[in-house]
Structures are given as C-alpha cells and as structure tokens.
C-alpha cells in the first residue's frame, strides 16, 4: 500500500473524489494534486479497484416462501402498551407514597436525608440517561425509526 502522501495532502479527499462527493473546488484541488503525486495516484487506483470488486459482489435473499413478516397482533401490541402504562403508573404512585410517608415519619431529619439520598441516586442516574437520550433524539434525523 502506498505510504502517506509525501506532500502532506489531505488523503481523505481521495475517498470523497472516488465517491464523487466533493464540491467542484475540492474536485479540482484533488485533480491538480493527482497530476503531481504518484503516491496518491497509486492509492486512488487501489481504492478504485477494491470498491469496484466490492460493488460487484451480488447477494441473493432467501426464496419468498422462507419469509414471514406478519405484523405482531393488535392484541399483543395493546397488551404490551397497557403493561408498560401500568408498570410506570404504579412505580410513580409508589414513589409519591414513599416520599410522603418518609416526610411524615417520626425519624430524625438525618435519617430521612440518608434514606432520601439513597433513593435519589438511581433516580438521578436514570434522569441523566434520559437527558442524553432526549438530546440525541433532537439531533437525529431518523429519530422516529424504531430502534
């Protein structure tokens, strides 16, 4: 494989050139460089050969009778949604009840703070993961695709 470009040219542009993904100006820059750089010319030739061989490898899917894309039943979909709603609802209710009970308990304040901070740890971790997910969703063009 040719070594890195001796002139220090940005080689990644060669891939863009090969894939016709460069702007007109970048394409012109690469062309001019290729005229003077045998190393990059050799690399481009190799990359072209590999890409053509890769693209010419055809794959054949199994016969149609081996496929089964029947949708999941509406009943199971509704049951799953109802199940999650019940779980989340009850977890919320239990949390509110626990906090209320803790506030009313006769224990010392430091005991209450200790118990509360113990429970707050996992909640904060959950919230941080949730915040990350939400931030990702906002910048993801295909966010509505099922994962």
């Amino acid at each position, binding site marked *: *494989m040719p070594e890195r470009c001796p002139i220090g040219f940005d*080689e*990644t*542009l*060669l*891939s*863009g050139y090969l*894939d016709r*993904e460069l702007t007109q100006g970048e394409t012109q820059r690469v062309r001019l460089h290729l005229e003077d750089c045998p190393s990059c010319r050799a690399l481009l030739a*190799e*990359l072209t*050969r*590999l*890409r053509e*061989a*890769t*693209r*010419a*490898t*055809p*794959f*054949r*899917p*199994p016969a*149609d009778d*081996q*496929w*089964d*894309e*029947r*949708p*999941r039943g509406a009943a199971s979909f509704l049951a799953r949604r109802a199940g999650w709603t019940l779980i989340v609802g009850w977890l919320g209710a239990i949390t509110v009840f626990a906090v209320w009970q803790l506030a009313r308990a006769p224990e010392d304040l430091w005991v209450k703070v200790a118990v509360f901070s113990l429970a707050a740890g996992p909640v904060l971790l959950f919230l941080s993961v949730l915040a990350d997910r939400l931030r*990702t969703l906002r*910048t*993801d*063009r*295909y966010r*509505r*695709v*099922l*994962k």
Partner: protein
Amino acid sequence: MNPSTMTRAVAGSAVPASGFDDAGLVVRARSGDREAREELARRCRGPAYALALQLLGDPEDALDAAQDSLIRLFESFGRFDPSRPLRPWLARIVRNRALDIRRRRRARPTISLDALLDEGHAEAPAAAAGPEERAADRELQRRIWRALQETSPAHREILVLRDYQDLSYQEIAAVLAIPVGTVMSRLHAARRSLRRALEGGEHHA
C-alpha cells in the same frame, strides 16, 4: 408470495402495486392496502437481507435480522415521511437490529464468501468477460469479504453502507447518526484498514 398477486390491481386503483414507487406504496400500505404491503416486502427483502448478511456474516442471523426489520419497518410507516427515500430508513432499522443481535447473541463465525456462493446466498460475479478475469474477480471478492471481517465494527458498517449498499454520504450520515464530514474521514480510514487487512491476508496465505 404468489406472483399472480403482483399483477392484481391495488385496491381502489387501476394501477398494479408494482407500478408505484416506494413512497406511493408506503402511503397505500399505511392505509391498509395488503397488495401494496406485499409489494413493499418483496422490494425490501433483498436489500434488508444483503445488508444484514454483510454486517453479521451469518445467513441465519441475517434472515432473522431482515425479517424483524421488515416487521419494524411496517410498524413505523405511520411515522415515515414519504418525501424522504425509503432505503436509508430501512438501512437504519436493519443496522440497529443487527447491532442488537450481535450484542445479545454470541457472535457466530462469519461464513466465507465461497460457502455463501455454494449455498446460494451470493451469486458468482458476471461482469468480467473471460473465465480468467471472472476467477480473478471472484478471488478478490473472496479476499475482500474475509478482510472485511477483520476490520472494526465501525469500519465494517461504513464500508458496507457505501461500497456494498451504495448509499450517499448524506444517507450514511443519517443512518449512523454522525456528521456528513465524519463520513468521509471514517470511510477513508476504513478503506485503509481494509487494505491493511488484505495485505495481512496475503502474508498469511
């Protein structure tokens, strides 16, 4: 699927399902048109299976991933924007499903391209003119397939999306959720890495 069903007219339309483009079929499938859904499934099976096979390297895992991806594709029609191309949307679903399978199952060894050809999962290259050229092409494709398995998952998936699936940089960026500028640099690094793996294969042969 029975081929005769493909010639039947789409419900409520005189045009057969095969006469619609992907977006038109999605709109009809969304409204419950069975013919449109079958035609879409027929169109998407090949690309979904090929991508899953290229990412996972095992025909059984690939069929599981592709079938599950099509189910998810149909479930996501309500959220699909028909003004956007279907292929990147499908590729994203297949890629995520392949990642799930790789994470949850113990990785199976990748099947060689020769075995895939023997078992009918791939076809012999037909582009080259003579038998010698064809043999040389097949040998290079076999080596590339093997070298691809030696590259990192990140390099493998970007090579597959560009060189096997022929997606544009814009589409790859959307599938991988990375900036377009990163696609070119990662792809070039992946090609370098593939070339190194090929050289390593030559030295070990």
